[in-house]
């Protein structure tokens, strides 16, 4: 040992070991090897197998599909399916970025009737008509017609629905009976307010009604827009004049905000779909107006304490015949996909009438993806379970058109959303203003004046001038 090494030992408190250095070198080598190994990523198949990547929203019905994928694999041993499953907002952002920039990571994407017509117009989605017509037993006429129209561009389907929804009202039949109230098949907002006033009881923790207040174009704006529609309000006139502080909109928003502030659930300004669901499931709300997909939570004894004491009514109206919204989580193939046939084979499996039987038998009949095919409601096992809500769901969906649910003409598609690309941003900012009104930090009029200035900026890009 040299003098130097001696001194070193006394400094570090342990003898020098060659192994330490060797170890460090080996670690680096391993890192380099890992780098070169992972360098061959991508979705190239091997040995004639094709790998498709499917981006979906992680809602319960989609999780069931992931759980059942072995059935697809058994029929298609040459197709390997990889899922990317994310919550709604993240999935939407990721899928939009990928499809819009031609990133090409995905072979199947889950989008809604908001994106489909816009993306089809941009040429980002494959036309599915040729695939649909060549698939035996697929029966596209079985899809609920309003949904099929909403997923078509120039009469050609560019996405197929996995499950669809409208909006309706759930109420506690037991509480209504106790109070001697009767819910009409299609209530008006005035009636809803009377019921809410009667049943609201803060002492027992019972809210008259649960309504969303959480800011977001897919959160508070969704139910609120159906109220705006039925009160005779609209976002834009056919020549793109913004109408957010016009009397129809002001009346509608005042009604909504006043209802939820007076008889709504606690913390309304931060309640989204999930929070409202929890309130209702825990027996803390007498009514709830929201997506018809709510039944999968409300009627599930594992998550709900009110199973058996609920009933359903159509979306509350004022000046229109109907007021329900229309939304469908659907599957589409981006133009960039290099595995379109395999992608379609997968889509066929997940949206075929046979899939519904599979879910019923393997998962449960309650778990059926609702609102895409009319034949779903003819399956005896499902019809029995869905006796309470099948009729209002189908009725709402079949009548969810602009003709039925709006007083005035508008230049955009959509009921609870404005079908323009700017709406994600515009809607969220308007939603924030309205959420602040629900929280009480500003008046409805102030919120709508601010919303109007946001809408004016968008309107200018469509050629409107003040």
């Amino acid at each position, binding site marked *: 040992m*040299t*003098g*130097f*090494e001696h*001194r*070193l030992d006394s*400094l*570090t408190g342990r003898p*020098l070991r060659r192994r330490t*250095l060797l170890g460090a070198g080996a*670690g*680096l080598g391993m*890192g380099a090897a*890992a*780098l070169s190994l*992972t*360098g061959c*990523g*991508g*979705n190239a198949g091997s040995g004639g197998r094709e790998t498709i*990547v499917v*981006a979906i*929203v*992680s*809602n*319960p019905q989609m*999780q069931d599909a992931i759980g059942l994928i072995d059935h697809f694999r058994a029929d298609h041993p040459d197709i390997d399916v*990889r*899922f*990317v*499953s*994310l*919550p*709604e*907002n*993240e999935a939407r952002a*990721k899928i939009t*970025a*990928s499809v819009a*920039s*031609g*990133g*090409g*990571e*995905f072979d199947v994407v889950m989008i809604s009737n908001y994106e489909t017509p816009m993306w089809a117009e941009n040429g980002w989605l494959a036309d599915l008509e040729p695939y649909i017509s060549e698939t035996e037993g697929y029966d596209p006429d079985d899809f609920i017609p309003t949904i099929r129209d909403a997923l078509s561009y120039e009469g050609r389907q560019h996405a197929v629905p996995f499950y669809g929804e409208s909006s309706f009202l759930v109420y506690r039949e037991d509480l209504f009976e106790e109070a001697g109230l009767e819910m009409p098949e299609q209530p008006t907002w005035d009636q809803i307010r009377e019921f809410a006033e009667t049943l609201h009881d803060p002492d027992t923790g019972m809210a008259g009604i649960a309504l969303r207040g959480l800011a977001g174009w897919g959160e508070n704006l969704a139910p609120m827009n159906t109220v705006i529609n039925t009160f005779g309000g609209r976002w834009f006139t056919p020549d793109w004049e913004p109408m957010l502080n016009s009397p129809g909109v002001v009346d509608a928003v005042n009604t909504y905000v006043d209802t939820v502030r007076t008889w709504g659930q606690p913390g309304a300004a931060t309640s*989204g*779909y*999930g929070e409202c*669901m*929890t309130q209702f499931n*825990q027996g*803390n709300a007498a009514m709830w107006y929201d997506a018809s*997909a709510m039944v*999968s*939570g409300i009627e599930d004894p*594992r*998550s709900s304490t009110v199973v058996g004491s609920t009933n359903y009514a159509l979306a509350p109206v004022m000046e229109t015949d109907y007021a329900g919204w229309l939304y469908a989580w659907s599957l589409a193939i981006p133009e960039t996909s290099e595995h379109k046939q395999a992608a379609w084979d997968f889509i066929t499996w997940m949206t075929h009438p046979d899939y519904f039987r599979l879910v019923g038998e393997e998962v449960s009949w309650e778990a059926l993806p609702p609102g895409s095919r009319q034949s779903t409601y003819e399956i005896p096992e499902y019809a029995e379970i869905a006796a309470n809500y099948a009729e209002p769901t189908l009725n709402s969906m079949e009548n969810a058109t602009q003709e039925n649910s709006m007083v005035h003409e508008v230049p955009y598609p959509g009921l609870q959303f404005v079908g323009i690309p700017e709406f994600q941003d515009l809607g969220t900012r308007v939603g924030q203003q309205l959420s602040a009104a629900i929280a009480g930090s500003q008046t409805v009029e102030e919120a709508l004046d601010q919303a109007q200035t946001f809408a004016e900026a968008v309107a200018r890009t469509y050629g409107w001038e003040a």
Partner: protein
Amino acid sequence: MSKILTTLAWFAAFIFFAPVLWMVMTSFKQEAEAASSPPTFFFEPTLDQYRAIFSSEAGSHFLNSFIATTVSTLLVLVLAIPAAYALSIRPVKRTQDALFFFISTKMLPIVAVIMPIYVIAGNIRMLDNLALLIILYTAMNLPIAIWMMRSFFLEVPGEVLEAASVDGAPLLMTMRRVLIPMVAPGIAATALICVIFAWNEFFFALNLTAAEAATVPIYLMSTMTSEGLFLAQLSAASVLASLPVVIAGWIAQKQLVRGLSMGAVK
């Protein structure tokens, strides 16, 4: 007085630890119990959530995270240690400018550059590729590692280095046998920070990976849903995701407590 302080300290510790405890407790609940309001404190523990995770595709996410974290951390150390040496013990020209340049790369919000990175990655067909994450994590952690390592090098007494050169040790040997053992606690601390940042990194992983290269934070996200209950499953996944960091911290702690260059110069 000291009793009150001790009680206060325990209380503060409990407040800080309570969310973690709650997460662990929730991971042993059924979904309905996890979502119940008011919360349930007494329940029949179940391993269902952990079983669900082990039967899912979580394994590939953990493997991806492990590779991305380990390789990027090793690369960072290999690059940062010589750089920090050149910026502290043998300062090169314009050291301050170089240091400022390194840290300035952290000043631009990632969200501002994600689209260009995404488009470039798409063009060179590197999307959903673990190598891309490794490069980005290395670049992301390098400035911090250089600054940290530099501060540790500055603590090394010059006399020790002089002694080494008097003993005839060449530069590489001095680095290998004097400097690095002396700053080992610093290396451990730096490595730990890099491991934590890389393991928990979410934004790049969310935007640049899909099925092949997705990491653990993406898996955590995928257990969440906007319709339906997920708290118990998410808690179980979070417990598993935290374990590697806890273990890394425990390993690094052994190095950290040894103290810096205590007693090196008498």
